[in-house]
């Protein structure tokens, strides 16, 4: 339900050479209720871009418009206003949750950031959130180390959804997961998007996974977006040589080893 527009966003990391920008004048748009997939290799600037949108990484130039309003992150008040609209789920399921807080504590904390909830409402909200991401409510009182990687990633997803954001940024959320677990997390993302009308920025390096959930795919390399098109178009007629190289590198069970060797 949230429209994101990024224009000419530039991020330079302090210490690196001035000529090298992690994000180099990137412009992209996510119409409300759609999913944009962002693919690229590690170091291509995907995570810096995500961080810059939510204010975790300072941007050196460009604008981020959310529903037409400039996103600001200088003061806590600005950050809170942005947090209501945009939430982020990060890559590493090992550090994504506070190791000393149970899933319930984590979710209650997130659910009460903007709203006061009494005891009964809190319990109901935790059950609702866990249900939303397909987790058994009985897992609520477990600590992160008692949960599997996929379960932890779902709890962080539920935490992000606790404030009812309009835009969800998912930064490599399936990279550390097994294929079978990845499949169910991907299904959850699609399901959520359909049910809640979320706009999603789905970042990843696994092209098939990104394509599976995205309406539009943008390919990023060296801090720039080299190609951006609807998913079907990218898959059928990739324009940029780098996109073609990416597509060609995807392992597929359809090809036999002999074919691969000659290609």
């Amino acid at each position, binding site marked *: 339900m949230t429209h994101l527009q990024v224009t000419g966003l530039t991020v330079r990391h302090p210490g690196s050479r001035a000529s090298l920008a992690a994000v180099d004048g990137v412009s992209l748009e996510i119409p409300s209720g759609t999913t944009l997939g962002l693919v690229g290799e590690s170091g291509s600037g995907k995570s810096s871009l995500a961080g810059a949108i939510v204010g975790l990484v300072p941007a050196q130039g460009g604008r981020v418009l959310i529903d037409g309003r400039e996103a600001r992150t200088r003061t806590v008040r600005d950050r809170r206003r942005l947090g209501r609209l945009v939430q982020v789920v990060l890559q590493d399921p090992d550090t994504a949750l506070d190791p000393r807080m149970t899933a319930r504590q984590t979710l209650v*904390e997130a659910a009460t950031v*903007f709203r006061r909830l009494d005891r009964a409402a809190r319990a109901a909200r935790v059950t609702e959130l866990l249900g939303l991401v397909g987790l058994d409510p009985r897992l609520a009182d477990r600590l992160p180390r008692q949960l599997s990687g996929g379960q932890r990633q779902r709890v962080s997803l539920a935490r992000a959804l606790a404030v009812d954001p309009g835009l969800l940024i998912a930064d490599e959320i399936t990279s550390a997961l*097994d294929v079978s677990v990845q499949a169910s997390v991907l299904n959850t993302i*699609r399901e959520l998007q359909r049910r809640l009308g979320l706009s999603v920025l789905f970042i990843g390096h696994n092209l098939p996974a990104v394509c599976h959930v995205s309406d539009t795919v943008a390919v990023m390399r060296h801090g720039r977006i080299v190609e951006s098109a609807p998913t079907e178009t990218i898959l059928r007629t990739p324009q940029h040589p780098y996109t073609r190289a990416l597509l060609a*590198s*995807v*392992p*597929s*069970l359809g090809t036999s080893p002999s074919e691969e060797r000659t290609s």
Partner: protein
Amino acid sequence: MCLPSGFRRSPIAWATAFMLASLVALAVAGPMVWGAAADRPDPSVVLRGPSAAHPFGTDGLGRDLLARVLTATRPSLLLALAAVLLGAGSGIIVGSCTAVLGRRGRRLTAGMINLLLAFPALLVAMFLAVVFGAGTAGAVLALAAAGVPGFARLAQTLAAGVAGTDHLAAARVLGLRRHRLLWRHVLPNIAEPLLLSATTAAGTTLVALSGLSFLGLGVQPPGYDWGLLLSQGLDRIYAEPLPALAPGLAVLYAALAFQLLGEALAGSVARRGPAPRAPAPTPPPSGPAEDGLVLQVEDLTVELPTPGGTIQPVRGVSLSLRPGEAVGLVGESGSGKTLTALALADLLPHGARVSRRTLRLLGADLAALTPKERDRHLATGLSMIFQNPASALNPSLRIGTQLTEAVRAHRGTSRAQATAEAADALRRVALSPALLRSRPYQLSGGQRQRVMIAAGLMTRPGLIIADEPTTALDVTVQRQITRLLTDIRRDTSAALLFISHDIALVGEFCERVLVMYAGTIVEAVPADRLADGARHPYTRALVASVPDLAADRGRPLPTIGGGPPDPLVPAPGCPFEPRCPRRQDHCAEQAPPWQDFDATHRVACWHPEPVTAVLKTVARS
């Protein structure tokens, strides 16, 4: 607090507990029992030496020194604790603030901490004690202030670790306020090491505080603590050593108690984890050798002690590799595939026990070799390539040194010859020999993994075990590495055991695939049949859950419900039974036997999938 068992067993821990208990008892009871005697002047026995009535002698007003030393326990300890609490408390707040402040605030605080650290703590304490004025409050404040920079730096370092975690970033995006981030997310996660060092600091602070009192900057008469008693006794130490020694020994005793407590706590934190077990007995000789096999393993089982009990992450794995063959080992995390590889290379973590019926590498029975011969045989016959090239290379050594190490140690090759071979190995993996002089940080991830492969090639191994060698790399680089491994296999006829969770990747470039689930191999299948001819329901489900570029995006991906079994409670039947769509009653009771379909395709399942289901997949693609 519940102390771990290692703590309860150690004699030092008992001594520490006794010393602390005695100090607490004295601090509580001392003034009540001996307080009156300590303050009662007796002009008839001024400045006496030890006697039956006054075991430590008397002071200038004829007060009993033993009573005074015992009574001084309370003020000495309380003042030291107050100084530590104040100093550590403010230091920790200042230091951990850096994790939640904005960039400018963080830089400013860090700079301030650095500046303050430059001054020696004890000098600062003495200077401040003079500035604040001689007296109890002044001394405590001075010591507290002197302790702040040290604690601030420690807390800053620890908090920086938390600040980099994803959960703090997520909490920040949620819009939590700074004080809440600090109290809820930063402090609880760094409390443990800080408590330990505060305990140790209590001992040093006690000594420092006594020092200030000794110098006349601390407790002022008529009050007294150990330091002041020491100073008063020192005037006549040559005539009567005991009045000076007794308070000195008291200081030593208390300081030692705090130090030991810190050590014992730190030790118990470090020891937390399973206790080491007795070394494994020598395995019996292997079964009969089969000709022409690079690796022959039968019935490999690994036992691993965990806090919850002993588990068997690998149970009865058998596999064999022929020269030049590429075999994939797939399974989800925790299925035991990496432990299988480590067991083959004799690299299991400490405490693990391995048993097997047969383990032959290049025809030699590893059970029949002496440990030294076995190490040598493994080092030259087998190479391992690990998942993370960033940590697999020693960051401080040049590439050349790391490449030539193994051949120089095991083959006695000369330096010049080894360097020439290393240059060849680098060329083989399409890197320039000029890299011999570089260090790991100068290379990219893909280059490092090539160096690892080159290092593996140096000993001309018969078997290469690659454990998730491309998982940390990007897809385009992954493709280059798998191609490289294929070429090497063709050129050197080395066998390759390729371990990965990515079934598509394994299926694409291996000839045979072993599918592992919960510590056992459930299916061995030729790679070309993986896409549509797999017979085990788990293999089928795994293949189906891979997102395919050609798949219909409107439909959800097939998933496997439930999770892998708990390794602590192994079930008697098929491990996949609870999640299996084809399960029947006896699946839970009896482990399925192997069924051979042909020489290369076997499956451990009571009810393998029929072959006909294949047609659907073929028709779709």
